[in-house]
């Protein structure tokens, strides 16, 4: 009798534990992953993420070859640069330190040249620098022609190309919406529905941004110019002309520049990370390919990952709705603006990552994917991004 009782007690406690687990599982929200990466080329790390849709593509995962022959002789040197286009940039290079002084000098010199390049790009593109090309454009009157430097010319051109390529889903002219929702300002974010911008205001800002394609970018006798669109909108007696922020694509562009610098200086091993929104990974001196972890946009702790894959000699870009956001009445308002509505994206895509191609393209593409919504994004990946690895996460609720 005693034994029987004991047996029941054991069975009951197991059942209770099991039920507890099941209930806990049920309480965890389920998220979907859509990717064109082939099965087996990535590893799922969280059980509340499910691969819901696989899109066919010809992408491959890099092998782990290419590591240094004598990795124990290698050392890594790196540095983080702060407040470049309102973000931080980190360069890390690894070299054979058998001849320590020479290797150290080589790394130091390279890191110094990266610093100079970052300062140059920041001076041209930052909205926080008063006389940057972008600030001059923003301060100019509608229809005015502004002379810009070569860096700005290249990034304006890239932005225009990506605007067309994404059918307007990438649009750097949503500046006023970003500001109206409390991002990129020092004024703080809205705390109640009453503090959110009025629909009429947002509609006008959206109209203004839809003229991004009217910007004229041209070269004349070795000098570079942009002509600001003539379109304006009037809200409560104030006339607004177009303002842009090339920070997103500018970070990707900088990653591409540093990638080329790494090649020119003969650095095979290392990486350059700009604001964790675009990264170029060369080869890892010990492992060959890098392990790339995808941050969970609904992570329960900082740095939690939901998926990982390998990356080598490629650029990766990501956008997510958990970088800067706030919630009002259960609705999430994030810093990524949907150019088609002028409002923060809210079509269920939580994050989007693109591996391959240039980082400038990647930066624009990930922002665009967030705004497209699931169906359009899938179609876009299938038709236009067949040569890149793409992953996006989706909240079905």
């Amino acid at each position, binding site marked *: 009798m005693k034994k029987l009782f004991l047996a029941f007690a054991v069975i009951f406690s197991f059942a209770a534990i099991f039920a507890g687990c099941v209930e806990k599982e049920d309480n965890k929200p389920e998220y979907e992953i859509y990717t064109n990466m082939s099965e087996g080329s990535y590893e799922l790390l969280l059980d509340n993420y499910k691969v819901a849709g696989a899109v066919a593509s010809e992408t491959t995962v890099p092998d782990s070859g290419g590591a240094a022959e004598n990795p124990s002789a290698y050392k890594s*040197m790196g540095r983080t640069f702060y407040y470049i286009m309102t973000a931080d940039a980190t360069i890390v290079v690894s070299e054979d330190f058998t001849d320590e002084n020479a290797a150290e000098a080589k790394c130091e010199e390279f890191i110094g040249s990266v610093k100079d390049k970052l300062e140059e790009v920041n001076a041209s593109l930052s909205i926080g620098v008063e006389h940057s090309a972008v600030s001059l454009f923003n301060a100019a009157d509608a229809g005015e022609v502004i002379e810009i430097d070569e860096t700005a010319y290249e990034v304006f051109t890239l932005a225009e190309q990506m605007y067309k390529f994404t059918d307007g889903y990438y649009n750097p002219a949503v500046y006023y919406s970003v500001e109206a929702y409390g991002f990129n300002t020092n004024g703080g974010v809205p705390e109640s529905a009453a503090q959110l911008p009025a629909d009429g205001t947002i509609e006008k800002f959206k109209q203004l941004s839809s003229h991004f394609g009217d910007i004229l970018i041209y070269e004349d006798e070795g000098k570079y110019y942009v002509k600001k669109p003539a379109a304006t909108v009037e809200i409560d007696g104030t006339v607004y002309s177009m303002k842009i922020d090339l920070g997103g694509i500018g970070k990707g562009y900088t990653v591409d520049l540093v990638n080329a610098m790494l090649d020119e200086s003969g650095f095979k091993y290392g990486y350059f990370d700009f604001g964790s929104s675009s990264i170029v990974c060369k080869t890892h001196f010990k492992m060959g390919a*890098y392990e790339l972890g995808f941050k969970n946009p609904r992570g329960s702790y900082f740095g939690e990952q939901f998926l990982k894959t390998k990356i080598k000699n490629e650029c990766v870009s990501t956008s997510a709705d958990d970088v800067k956001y706030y919630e009002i009445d259960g609705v999430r308002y994030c810093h990524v603006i949907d150019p088609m509505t002028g409002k923060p994206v809210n079509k269920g895509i939580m994050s989007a990552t693109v591996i391959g191609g240039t980082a400038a393209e990647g930066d624009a593409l990930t922002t665009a994917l967030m705004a497209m919504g699931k169906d359009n994004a899938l179609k876009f990946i299938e038709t236009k991004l067949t040569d890149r690895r793409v992953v996006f996460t989706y909240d079905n609720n």
Partner: protein
Amino acid sequence: MSLKKIEQVKADKGFKLSDLFVYAAIVTLVVVLFIVIFATRDDSPLKGIRIYVKNEIVYEYDFGDGQRMLNGNYTEVISNDEKTVVLKINTGGNDYNIVQIDKEGSVKVTEANCGKNDCVYTPELKNSGGVIYCSPHRMKIVPFDYALDDGNIII
């Protein structure tokens, strides 16, 4: 139970050769899993830590030799007793992080006014496998032996 069966059960007591194989298999499995889980990560004990503000090392704690203040403008020792050192890292303006070093060999951030508090939520450092980073304050706590490039990139 018949007498014969009881005899049989008694005879079966103790180890048989086949039992030993099962036990050996279980022990091997446990050892292999243990090695797989622990050998792949850097869990060498913390020798010491450096605290960076922007790119400057402002404070160093060596678990063998004790503390070294490298830039007093950023660092304020709130308490230092047998077991713990508590520091206030002033990162500019009114911004600060409170860092607690356990002299047994661990360090954590207990408080910060950065809003996000990622640094406070980061588990305490006990080995050389990780860093604590406060991105709004540009404050970093890095183990002496931390590998600058361990081949892991998170995006």
